[in-house]
């Protein structure tokens, strides 16, 4: 039983880390630029496709994942320069309209380039094995690697935001944009960089998720919803909040799926439990979001914002 619970905790952590990689970019862009980017999921999808493309070209999985992240970063920068920067001063509704349109364009472009059906994205031999952990758990190496990458990215992000000059400006930009630009900071360059970095994180997440998921047009939309939940729970614009919320959401979702049915059958008949268990498990995350919105509308660890 201990082994089962520990393994499910690892599963939850892995899902949480993946969600964090996507939500971090989303929350940065929202927090700093006050820009709602629905097409973030499309950048995730592009990451997965680029990883497949680069793996075919270079033959190295790690190189492919890195290049995919950078490739999506470039796409993000182009987006920002051509389109997104014209929208900052417009209303949220305009952001939503344009970036929703971008989702349609991205899905259709991918379908034209690679076909509407899933494409193959596999793992190298060395990563598709199991590793023995304490308590008799044997766990897929690749999922451990995803957890590792997530932790490293989180650490780098904290260092960047907390201890570097650019991080200071990002924090300042999130707190009070007008004052930052009055102080002589090139705010439009800052925005471009943040958008590109957010795109890089989404691309990295997509590249890492590719071997686990089915790489096909529209694959970004399902993760987008969950990562918005993470952003809302964590507090808009807060990296720390995003990390905390991503881990909580990952754990709740996984533990709910794994144990809720057995838990319910302790009180209810087996039939009711097997009907209600999965239904309730898929709702848990949203119930949590509703509760957070009710009791802490600004999220778990909100940014301090003055206007």
């Amino acid at each position, binding site marked *: 039983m201990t082994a089962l619970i520990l*393994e499910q905790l690892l*599963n939850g952590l*892995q899902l949480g880390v993946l969600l964090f990689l996507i939500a971090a970019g989303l929350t940065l862009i929202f927090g700093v630029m006050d820009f709602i980017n629905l097409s973030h999921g499309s950048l995730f999808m592009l990451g997965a496709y680029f990883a497949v493309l680069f793996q075919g070209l270079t033959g190295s999985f790690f190189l492919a994942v890195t290049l995919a992240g950078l490739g999506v970063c470039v796409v993000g920068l182009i987006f920002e320069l051509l389109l997104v920067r014209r929208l900052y001063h417009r209303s949220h509704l305009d952001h939503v309209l344009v970036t929703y349109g971008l989702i349609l364009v991205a899905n259709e472009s991918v379908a034209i380039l690679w076909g509407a*059906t899933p494409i193959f994205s596999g793992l190298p031999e060395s990563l598709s094995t199991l590793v023995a952990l304490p308590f008799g758990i044997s766990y897929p190496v*690749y*999922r451990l690697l995803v957890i590792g990458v997530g932790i490293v990215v989180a650490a780098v992000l904290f260092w960047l935001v907390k201890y570097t000059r650019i991080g200071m400006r990002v924090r300042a930009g999130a707190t009070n944009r007008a004052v930052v630009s009055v102080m002589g900071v090139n705010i439009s360059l800052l925005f471009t960089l943040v958008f590109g970095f957010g795109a890089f994180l989404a691309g990295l997440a997509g590249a890492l998720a590719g*071997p686990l*998921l*089915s790489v096909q047009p529209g694959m970004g939309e399902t993760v987008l919803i969950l990562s918005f939940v993470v952003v809302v729970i964590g507090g808009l614009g807060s990296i720390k909040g995003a990390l905390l919320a991503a881990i909580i959401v990952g754990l709740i979702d996984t533990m709910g799926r794994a144990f809720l049915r057995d838990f319910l059958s302790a009180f209810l008949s087996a039939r009711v439990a097997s009907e209600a268990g*999965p239904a309730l498990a898929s709702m848990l995350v949203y119930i949590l979001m509703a509760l957070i919105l009710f009791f802490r509308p600004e999220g778990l660890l909100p940014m301090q914002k003055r206007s």
Partner: protein
Amino acid sequence: MRKTLATLALGTALTTGFSAQAETVDVGLILSLSGSGAVLGTEMQKGADLALEMSGGKLGGLEGHFLYEDDQRKPDVGKTAAEKLIRSEKVDFVIGPSYSNVMMAVQAPIVRTGTILISPNPAPAELAGANCDANYFSIPFQNDQPAEALGLHMNEKGIKKVFVVVPNYQAGKDVVEGFKRTFKGEIVSEIYTPLEQNDFSAEMTEIKTADPEAVLAFMPGGLGVQFVKQYDQAGLKPMADLYTVFTVFNGVSLDAIGAAAEGVYSVDQWTYDLDNPANKEFVAAYSTKYGTLPSNFAAMAFDAVRLIDGAITAAGGVEDKEAVRAAMKAASFQSVRGDFAFNTNQHPIHAMYIARVSKDEATGALAVRNEGMIVDKMADSYAAECTLE
């Protein structure tokens, strides 16, 4: 005299004009051609196109026209498409749709107008029993059949402990119901996952802990790609055999899963290596045209077009709807499955096979290959409730 000649000429022109119009057959195809449902829809399109091409663009000797409509796997879009095909295009037949949820929305509006509807894939239980209709034909199976056949196969193999994973929607529940109808062993656990869930790590851990002899999974479309990959990555393949229905198929599905699919079982009414002349001709033509082995979805769409072709030939045209319906019911065509007949509810009576993913000797590509017949001349469980003659 001159006038008479002119009138005669006009008369002839009119007659030929009318008969030329009557000599075309319009077939509307409502398929999921975009979005995540396109995985199956495009396969069906390929199969149908090939069938028309192989008969020289003719259906039963008449000029055949295909009108494609994309339902995006959405019931409301499918319904609009159906109404367009019936009212403004006035098609003679409709083939489609690709998924059960769209079928439930389009079946009634189509059959009510007297237009013949042929399902190339979904055959929900609701339409096979008391609600069967003279204008509705299911070409591939009744949805429960593969799972029922799998139950029989596992009984025969002596498999006692089975773990079931299906998506939490009607078709998933139908599969479990069908399996329970025949399977005599113990179902150690049945898990219903949300349709939008794409990471199955928690389920894989549960399977490992339950330690079953076999796993039954139904994961349609892209879900199948993810599930089979993750099953392999979790190291479960050596622990429990994976049995699937409607999950792995030749071409896009196996290409996307890769080596992780090797050894996975599937229950099907057709496999590409069935030994009959119609099938050999179909597989050869398909491989030449598209460069891959055909999937069962392509094969069923191919059969659907062939059914129309055979019925028009037997009825001598499309004018007499009664004659066409009778000819369709007689199934006067060569199915790629070999033996094929319609039951009273116009669902198939046919053989079910156990198949396994392994390398095709000729091409080296992974394929769902026949491992033997489970049951011959299998009828579905709902025919008795249907009151059609």
